[in-house]
């Protein structure tokens, strides 16, 4: 495999990984949105606080997942910058 082919493969893998992570982020936003709608419905229906808390806890868990994926993406974005800098050096 030539150096160019290797770079292409690496780029494709990187894009695939980014796409998967973006898909995951969208799923998390969707879960947050859905749990918020359910919590609103429960409040409208005067259901117990405990039942609403279940959805709020799920929202918090999803927010944590969201945060960790964003951190991971952030690290990945940082990598090419370093490589670029090193190349120039």
């Amino acid at each position, binding site marked *: 495999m030539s150096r160019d082919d290797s770079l292409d493969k690496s780029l494709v893998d990187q894009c695939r990984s980014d796409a998967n992570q973006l898909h995951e982020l*969208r799923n998390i936003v969707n*879960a947050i949105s*859905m*749990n918020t709608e*359910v919590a609103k*419905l429960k409040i409208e229906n005067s259901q117990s606080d405990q039942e609403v808390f279940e959805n709020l806890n799920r929202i918090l868990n999803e927010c944590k997942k969201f945060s960790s994926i964003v951190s991971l993406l952030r690290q990945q974005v940082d990598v090419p910058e370093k490589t670029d800098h090193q190349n120039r050096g």
Partner: protein
Amino acid sequence: MLNILLVDDDHAFSEAFSEMIEMLGHHATLAHSVAEAKQALAVEQFDLGLLDLMLPDGSGLELLDEMSKGQRATHLAIITGHPVVKAQVRTLCGPHISYLTKPISLDQIKSLLAKAGDKGQVDDGLHFDCLVGESEVMKKLYKTIARVADSGANVMLLGESGVGKELVARAIHNCATPTGAFVAANCGAFSRELIGSELFGHEKGSFTGAIARKGGLFERADQGTLFLDEVTEMPLDLQPTLLRTLETGMVLRVGGTKELPVQCRVISATNRSPQEIAEKNCLREDIYYRLAVFPITIPPLRDRRGDIPLLARHFLKELNERGGTTLELPERDMAKLQGYDWPGNVRELRHTIHRAYIMSDPESNEIEFPDQLASPFSSEEIAPTGLRVGTTIEDTERQLILMTVEELGGDKRKAAEMLGVSLKTLYNRLNQYERVKE
């Protein structure tokens, strides 16, 4: 109650979705993979199937065949993260499929449930959750709505006043299940000075009274539907701005400098015919073609008289629900309702039922219609009677009897029925008139 299958590998979403479905009075079965969905489909039939495309062991599309095998018609909805997928799935599965774009809102789900509850799109007599009627012209209209809904094309609704143009616009919106709202505005109701600000919004200080920034109707309808009623009443000098917004998908607030992107379907309506629009030049030609990509003519009520009992019962049901009553529609009045020409169309029928509901005897279990349904706009001709002050009752009676007999071609039995007298009385009167002549 609908039986719903949700196929999605996202547990947090699936559980919340299931909770929501139960709260809305339906039942949901969850499957997190193609294999689990196939197991569920093997033992149960569903009214609605929601499919995620990316599953751990394959694609939701693999389940389309399984779902169409059941005896019960399953309405299908694809959950997609990207609107582009819509076009690809439409190519594979045809246009009659719904889409939910993540993140999914409660309104989207309610709209989808209404659509799935329709089956051939009827739920409680309502088509697309808002239209009533089973006549051939209406069935044709429903097919047109279903076709145009998924296209995203701008639609112009044509028809007489009171035919239900806003309801048809809402039906298109309900059928298309967009993520945004349905926003309706009457172009004839805005003052000439404010219509620009209402449609496109304004920046703070852009004119006297603009004390704060305000988004316009286009912004409110982003990702949804903007219904512009009486569009031909819009001032001609504002139409180029509307045309620019329609062409570019960008809106510029009054007094603003930055264009904002908006994506919404515009449904316009007018009670003028295309010929009248062209002759009276009330709409620029270029904007007409932009708005009327798909023109739909809504039939007047007199062209679908068979729907009158359905509509009348529907309006009465609404009034009964609101008023906590159980009044009924007298069957004997049905012919009268169907025989009238309803120049004010469905709106006039609704008001007539409302009036009859208010006028009904509290002791009775039926609503009470007036003897005459005539409206000042009715096209029914009332024959000139030649009545004038000073005419005796005897002369008036003679005129009425002779006119009625003549109108019915000499059929005395029918004439007696219509006049509300016995056949014997009618003969007596006619003999009396003959004797006077001799």
